[in-house]
């Protein structure tokens, strides 16, 4: 077990984080005293069996859910001190999301979906950056299309571009390849890799796919709400091996 004390320079960190559902006998600890941090400019995968608490950890880190005990930080800001409005602004400005089920707004065009967080904040759009993001995910010819006119892979590329568009401190991706065929999945993962390598983005991805995890710089393993293991520069074989151990 290699739990480090979170540093304030980390893009995101959890400190003795616990999430407890129910009381007394029926108490369930979705997160049990988790301390972990995610360094800037790194691509981290969180893995673990169903019910291990990986999604809960991500939701709490992203300010979508609240902890029972402990603290989470985004770029040094303690989220437990923020109210709903401040959390909303934080999500808009510091955090990007990529969901499993694309989660685009069907009435908006691809471009409008990409610029949504910027538009919501009333921020002027940096055209150069937008072009770079759009070309990175190869969506130039699809910008005026509605989500219903795009394939699953294309929709998820829009989601990636949306997450990148506001230059957030950190992007959280929840099973981003879960709904995609392997070719589209690989495409998305290499886009994410590219965003970390070339654009200096920080990404935290929850996945159960060892192949996906192999794209990351570091894999954190969770089981029963605890951080149980960690691998840096993993290969898919390594990841699979660890997972098998966890399962047994």
């Amino acid at each position: 077990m290699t739990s480090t004390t979170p540093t304030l320079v980390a893009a995101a960190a959890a400190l003795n984080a616990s999430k407890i559902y129910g009381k007394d006998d029926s108490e369930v600890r979705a997160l049990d005293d988790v301390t972990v941090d995610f360094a800037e400019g790194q691509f981290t995968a969180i893995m673990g069996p169903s019910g291990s608490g990986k999604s809960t950890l991500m939701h709490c880190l992203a300010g979508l859910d609240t902890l029972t005990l402990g603290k989470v930080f985004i770029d040094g800001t303690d989220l437990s001190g923020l109210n709903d409005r401040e959390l909303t602004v934080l999500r808009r400005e510091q955090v990007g999301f990529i969901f499993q089920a694309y989660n685009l707004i069907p009435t908006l065009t691809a471009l409008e979906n990409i610029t949504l967080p910027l538009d919501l904040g009333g921020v002027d759009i940096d055209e150069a950056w937008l072009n770079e993001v759009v070309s990175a995910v190869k969506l130039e010819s699809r910008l005026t299309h509605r989500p219903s006119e795009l394939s699953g892979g294309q929709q998820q590329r829009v989601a990636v571009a949306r997450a990148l568009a506001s230059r957030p401190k950190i992007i959280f991706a929840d099973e981003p390849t879960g709904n995609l065929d392997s070719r589209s999945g690989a495409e998305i993962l290499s886009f994410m890799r590219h965003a970390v390598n070339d654009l200096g983005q920080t990404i935290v991805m929850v996945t159960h796919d060892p192949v996906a995890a192999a794209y990351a710089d570091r894999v954190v393993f969770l089981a029963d709400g605890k951080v149980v293991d960690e691998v840096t520069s993993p290969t898919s074989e390594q990841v699979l091996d660890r997972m098998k151990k966890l399962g047994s």
Partner: protein
Amino acid sequence: MRGVVARKFRIILTVFAIVSGVAFVSGAFMLTDSVKTAINSLFEELRGDIALEVRTPIAFGDEARAERDTVPAALVSGIAAVPGVSSVELNIERESTIVKPNGKPLKTSGPAFGISWLGQNGLDGRTILAGREARGPNEVAIDRVSAKRAGYVLGDTVTLVGPTGKQEFKLVGLTGTGKTSGGGGASICAFDPVTADAFLGAKGFADSIYVGLEKGASRSTVQKEIATLLTNKYEVIPGEQSAKEIAGAINDIIDIFGKLLLGFAAISLFVSAFLIFNTFAIIISQRLRELALLRAIGASSSQIRLMILGEALIIGIVATGFGILGGIGVSKGITALFNATGAAFPPATIAISMRTIIVALVVGIGVTVTAAMVPALRASKIPPVAAMRPEIGFTALQHSKRLVAGVVTLLVGITLLCLGLFIQPGGAIGILGASGLGAVLLFLGVASLSTSFAAPASAAISRILPFPLRPMTRSVAGRLASRNAQRTPRRTATTASALMIGLAMVSTVAVIAASVQKSFKDRLQGSVTADYYVTSDGFQGLPPVFAEKLAALSELGKVSPFRASTAQVNGESKQIGAVNVDMFSIVNVKLTSGSYASLAKGQILVHRDPARDLSLSVGSSVAITWQNGTSSNLTVGGIYDDSAVAGNWLVSLDVLSQASTAPPVDFFIGAKIADGVDIEEARIAVEIVAEEFPSAQVQDQAEFQKSQEDQLNQLLIIVYCLLVFAIGIAVLGIANTMALSVYERTREFGLLRAVGMSKRHLKRSVRWEAIIVSVFGASLGITVGVPLGIAVSIALPESFVTGISIPINTIVAVLLASIVVGIIAAIGPARRAAKLDVLEAISAI
């Protein structure tokens, strides 16, 4: 679980819409039934022991409302001598206004009567509730409700104004009628017969004579016996006959009121139908997968159809049940409202007849099931494969020949409407039937077509609103609102259509009212040059003595009363006006031929329209039969082409009084100041005379105009209030649709919140969508309503409307109001959207 709750909410709204419609329908029936029963029994009681009544017959017309000649009191002795007659009473009933202690006349919702009364032992059914009957020249008994409303108690000195002027009496008794303590809206001042004759100016004549019988005497024998005493100028009838006639006349008024209520019930049911239609359409698309699954496991399409219709049937039955209960509330509420204004309706048990229940059931269930018909049909067309691939089901639902059907419905509607308004087949029923059905089809056609342009219209509205601020489309919340309104054009259109109907009615009425008002004003300004008008705010007009007193004032130059009577011309009932020649200096009656002076010679002046219809010209002769049977052959002395105040037929006051001995009543008096007299001075002189007649209202030209406009405005307010109800149902519809939109877009809202939309912006987005829908509805309503109002105004006879006026203010107000409507409708749904838990919402299916 959330789906069930959402559906429950929607069904409650739907049920409420039907309940309110059915409540109005059944309430209208219950009200008319129970009030009629009560009125009939009241008049039966009022008849008391009157076995026979002697009165003058009428040649034609409505028995109850006829102006009858009087009966000489001298007939009494002859009738009293007939064997079998126990007692004979004079029936004198004239105006007698009660003046309140503060000098103002007591306002009543019915006429203000002074009567001759012998007390409890007399023949009629009036009772003494306190004190005793009036005896002697200075005593009066007043019905308890009116005395209380005026603020008088036994022993007080009461000022009354009758046909002979103002007089003070001592209040010695409080009376009741049958079981009630009032006069059914009228105020009743009872005097002894001698006092009544003097104060009420009967001068030895009575309206009729009441006859009571000895025990055991045969009524028909006595009736025959009395008949032989009378010339054919008089008739003797059974006592209950005239009671029935009067009760019938009151029942007619109640029926009109009932029909008005039914009209509004019809409008609100029509609006409800849209709401029901929408609810079922929504429920079906929500249950698409479930219905497809049923089809997949072997349910036939007709079974699906019957299932949906069955659900509609259950909702209809439940709602109708509540609606009938609500009807009791409606009818009690209206009765209470009338009693509060002094109507003193007899206490009536609410009559729920079989017919009421049957009509309520047919209407309530019928509307529900009919409205659910199309959604049910659509549900039955869902292909089984949609169970696996829901998107296929939706495309299957999109197919429709809506455009063609909409255009055809619209055209048929407009044709019928024009037919009803302008060709007017089959009289009133034809006009109302054809134009009513035409209007319904017109609304349905527009509602159906509006689906086709709901999307572009929503886009346009969102680009304009909120003018002149930043248009909606420039913000994310606004853009989302706009796109969401365009996303389901059918739903947007149906929701907006419900609002359209109410607002179309409002704009129709507004255009008609503005046109009537404008025409009236124009005509008044052009034709009336009087300095003063005296009108009565009571029911019985002004006693002629008033005009005589005004004429005697040296400050006034010309004075003429306007009197009117009913007569038959060429077999048709017409209103004949009577004035003196002075009137032509007061009111502009433009003669195209003949002379004003001919009027004084006993000739008749005729408006050009009837003159043309009957090919009359100056010198031709007109046969007129007055209501008492007298016929006169009058020579046409002139033809005029304006009838603003004068009506279509004018004779002199002398001609009228020679023809009829019915107590004369002046509708209004016109007066012009004498040359050289100061306007203030003249006004003071007029006011001094008017003080004796508390129901008289002296107005100068501007005041007269304003009071006429106020009357119209009051009527309008009542109509608007009732229409607000229909609009209220439409608001429910918008709220319903928005609630559903929020439910359907849970996941989108979750995502928006996740990527940084604040609660405030989310609420704004929902609110703006509702505003777009309601502004769309209002625009449709105005687009339909204004031309409809213009068409009706054109169709109205020229005596009402001469020019069209479009009330821009009202139209702008309607548009602004629709924005408010949208905001109100969105309150609940917006709050719910903001309350969504982000994580739960984002993972919702």
